[in-house]
């Protein structure tokens, strides 16, 4: 790790100014991802701006929206009463992530900006377009068991590793960011990017911008039938091979609306719109679930070690919907 300067501003304005002034500066929140990346030499900021002193920790409901501050801890959000009641999907997804210790350091903003766990990205002796554009993608013909089956490019087949973000994608959240030019809001699905030819860019945050929070609409019907399923290599403390965030608005056996997203399959949380549309107004039956699942992954493509996700993805979706509807 290189030597770095450190500051801890008290206001959002000061934090943004500090970042804008210095291209080698980075925000640090819980540090659970950034510090690892610094230790491995993957990222080498010369200045850290500690944002944990900013007043962005609140979780509150106003009308039909729950606002969650960017610095609320993953553990706090998961255990928060409003979240548990109104957004159980989010609570479940958070608890499925990392370990209790890490969740107790990790923040909402940091979770959104955590970087891929691709082994080639982490090892500076390996080729990786995301870390060092132009060096090639080590995973493309390498060990790509954890990698993407949707929306990837030959430049990068990495996945976004977050669980929380899969739930937020399903729940139609909005990201609130503030930069030198003021505040703007992005639909959650537009926040993260696909790799294309610029895999070094994970998301659409502009230089100098700070995530201040997320806004999640509440929907009591969806909240009643929400489930986050995470398939991983051990029972806890492992990244998702595949995960599914599902919320259904049910009337008897009929699905009025579905919100579905998948994790572990793409460079961003993958919203399964086609499957949602297919299920809308349909009966909850295994056959319908299966059809929705195969529609959802029609475009999917394996790269070798990760071919199993072509089966695991749809199966996990079917299993989640079965559990959720009891069929």
């Amino acid at each position, binding site marked *: *790790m*290189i*030597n770095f300067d450190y500051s801890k501003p008290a206001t959002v304005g000061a934090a943004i100014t500090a970042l804008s002034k210095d291209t080698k500066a980075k925000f640090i929140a819980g540090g659970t991802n950034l510090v690892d990346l610094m230790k491995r*030499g993957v990222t080498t900021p010369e200045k850290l701006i500690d944002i944990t002193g900013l007043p962005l920790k609140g979780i509150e409901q106003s009308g039909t929206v729950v606002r969650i501050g960017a610095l609320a801890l993953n553990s706090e959000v998961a255990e928060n009463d409003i979240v548990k009641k109104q957004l159980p999907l989010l609570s479940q997804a958070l608890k499925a992530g990392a370990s209790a210790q890490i969740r107790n350091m990790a923040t909402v903003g940091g979770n959104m900006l955590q970087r891929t*766990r691709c*082994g*080639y990205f*982490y*090892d500076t*002796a*390996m080729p990786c377009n995301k870390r060092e554009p132009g060096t090639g993608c*080590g995973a493309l*013909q*390498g*060990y790509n*068991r954890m990698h993407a089956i949707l929306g990837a490019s030959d430049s990068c087949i990495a996945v976004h590793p977050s669980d929380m973000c899969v739930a937020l994608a399903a729940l139609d959240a909005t990201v609130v960011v503030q930069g030198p030019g003021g505040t703007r809001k992005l639909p959650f699905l537009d926040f993260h990017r696909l790799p294309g030819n610029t895999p070094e860019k994970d998301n659409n945050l502009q230089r100098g911008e700070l995530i201040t929070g997320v806004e999640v609409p509440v929907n009591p019907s969806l909240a009643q039938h929400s489930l986050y399923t995470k*398939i991983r*290599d*051990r*029972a*806890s*403390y*492992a*990244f998702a*091979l595949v995960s599914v965030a599902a919320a259904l608005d049910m009337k008897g056996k009929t699905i009025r609306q579905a919100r579905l997203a998948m994790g572990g399959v793409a460079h961003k949380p993958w919203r399964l719109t086609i499957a949602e549309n297919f299920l809308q107004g349909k009966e909850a039956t295994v056959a319908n679930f299966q059809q929705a699942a195969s529609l959802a992954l029609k475009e999917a493509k394996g790269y070798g070690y990760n*071919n*199993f996700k072509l*089966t*695991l993805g749809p*199966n*996990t979706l*079917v*299993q989640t919907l079965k559990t959720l509807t009891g069929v």
Partner: protein
Amino acid sequence: MDNFFDLNIPFAEIDRVDGKAKVTGKADYVAEHDLPNLTYGVLVGSTIANGTVTAIDTKSAERAPGVLAVITHLNAPKVPGYEEGENPAKGRTGGGGLKIFNDNRIRFNGQPIALVVADTFERATYAASLIKAQYNKEAPHTSLADAIKNDKPIEGDNYKEAVRGEKDAWKTAPVKVEGTYIMPIQVHNPMELHATIARWDGDDKVTVWEKTQGVVSTQQSIANAFKLEQKNVQVYAPYVGGGFGSALRTWPHAIAAVMAAKKLGRPVKLVLTRPQMFMLVGYRPEAIQHISIGATPDGKIVGMRHDAYAVTSNYENFNEGLVAQTKQLYACANLATKYNIYPMNLSTPTWMRGPGEATGSFPLECALDELSYALNLDPIELRKRNYAETDPENGKPYSSKFLREAYDLGAEKFGWKGRKPQPRSMEEDGWLVGYGMSSGMFGAFRGEGRVRLKFSGDGMLTIQSAVSDSGPGTATAMTRIASDAMGLPVNKVNFELGNSAFPPGPTQGGSSTTSTLGTTVSMACDSLKKKLVELLKTQESEIALADVQFAQGEMRLKNGKSISYTDALKAANLPSIELTESSGRNPEMQKYSAYSYSVHFVRVKVHPLTGVVRIDKVVSAGDAGRIISEKTAASQMKGGAVGGIGGALMEEGVIDHRYGRWVNNNFADYHVPVHADVPDVEVVFVNKPDPVLNPNGSKGMGEIALIGFAAAVANAVYHATGKRIRELPITPDKVLL
């Protein structure tokens, strides 16, 4: 040999004597130990797997703040022991291995190319990141599958085909099973990082704090490398935070620390990083194995063939008993085995818990399971029908064998009779349920041990030996033995270890410490008893040792009189009694074969849609002779099951063969079990003494706790799903596709 005790009386349970220090953070592990004037060393690893270093730029590192020295092959002080050729007589634990900083040749990825020493760990770590090397790259060879296809294995006596009876008998048997099994690299990964502190005390004396399973072997290795008198190398290893075999050797990083301390004239602490733990302190070698078994329709094994292929480094041949259990476990007249190893651009593997037997038991015990289905026989019944009453290799009787009892005890405790024989016939809450079992065996040994014993006027019995405790609870078991032998409360016995100034103890490996050192401790206590009785003779005439009972700190005589040990000392005007005792192999044992046995039972739930496997019940039954310390023994077996769950379901060292470089050498990507993966492991022991091996009736147990476990899981997954998975680890992808 006489037995000192009534072997049928079980030992009472005691707590781990070092437990409190360990859980309260008082235990002083090497990486935490502090010394005045200490400096910190950090190793830099190569980024290629094969080739040579053509240039190495150390300038910016040397200029970095706090840096005291940068050592590379260009400026490394000569290690005098490196000049000699390999001395096979010294054995693997006594030295040898990669000659660190000795030349510019790169033999594996991550091989140390430089050591940076600085005044703090952080500064050394930073400076290490500034070192840049240039290489002449050659193609890396790390794929075993490719090597089997394209290369010739190493030749030599160890690798010749071994045939018993008729080589091809299995081929003509009425019922046959065959399969190829793959086990990836597994890495010991004890919680404690490997660490060395070296301090020179003059030109010809060095003190070393080392994470080691062999205090004496570390002393020898360092003495050999630096051409010192063995007694001039002082080794401390008071606590070892796990080893599983990784600390059976003194690795090159320890030599580097000693070298640097000499160059600097200051003590150097060198702690490996977790990624380095995958590359520099051994691993369980990847193995591909093919096994064939032929049997009669009533389940008698007619013939077997087992071919094993495994990796080694290209500077040392690493051998272990992959086919050993196949030769031993079942009565079978016709057998052929062949063990093959291939030199690779990998560091040298080393014994990992259960060593080769754990690897070899995977194909063997899966094949037995497969055979049981082919024959429509219960897997336990099949094993009993082929029970070896005598050693199938040489016809010798066993010193003791209670495997049959272990099958029955384990089956009873597990509820094996609840198993429906057909695969994929049991279900619960939408999950497929499967029962699986397997057996394991490992040689029961006893080596040479030496202890010093002191009984003082204050009633304390202190026993010392230069052994280390990598986790099984050696001090606890020895305390138990001595307290029982002497009729002293546990808190009056103090067993001291981890110091080379004590009389030489054995290296802690091969499940032999309790057998070896337990014998020495028993004998030392016996000698103490004799001395105490001698003291009495000045007051009472003609007392035979056999007529004295030693209980509650006193000698009880036939005439009803009793005298405490401390009073006896006082009466004789002695401050203390001191003696040393040594013990060796039991020559009687030449007539016998000696093994410990385990039987593992596993219940799995397999999710039919997602391929997730959960182990929800484990019973491990052991025949490990008489159990010396119930609690630590049970913990040993439980730890073995945890390791077994890891090996079966998740552990896999991944190397990208294009670069010969590790992809997952960290704890986020290399998975070991977390609590949620481990059910309450139940342990049962036959707990019957071995009447020959040693006076305590114990046999070893560290290895059998793991041996066979992976097969039990694979067999349970087969029973649950009808799918035979022959490649570890059994992750969801393998279950699904």
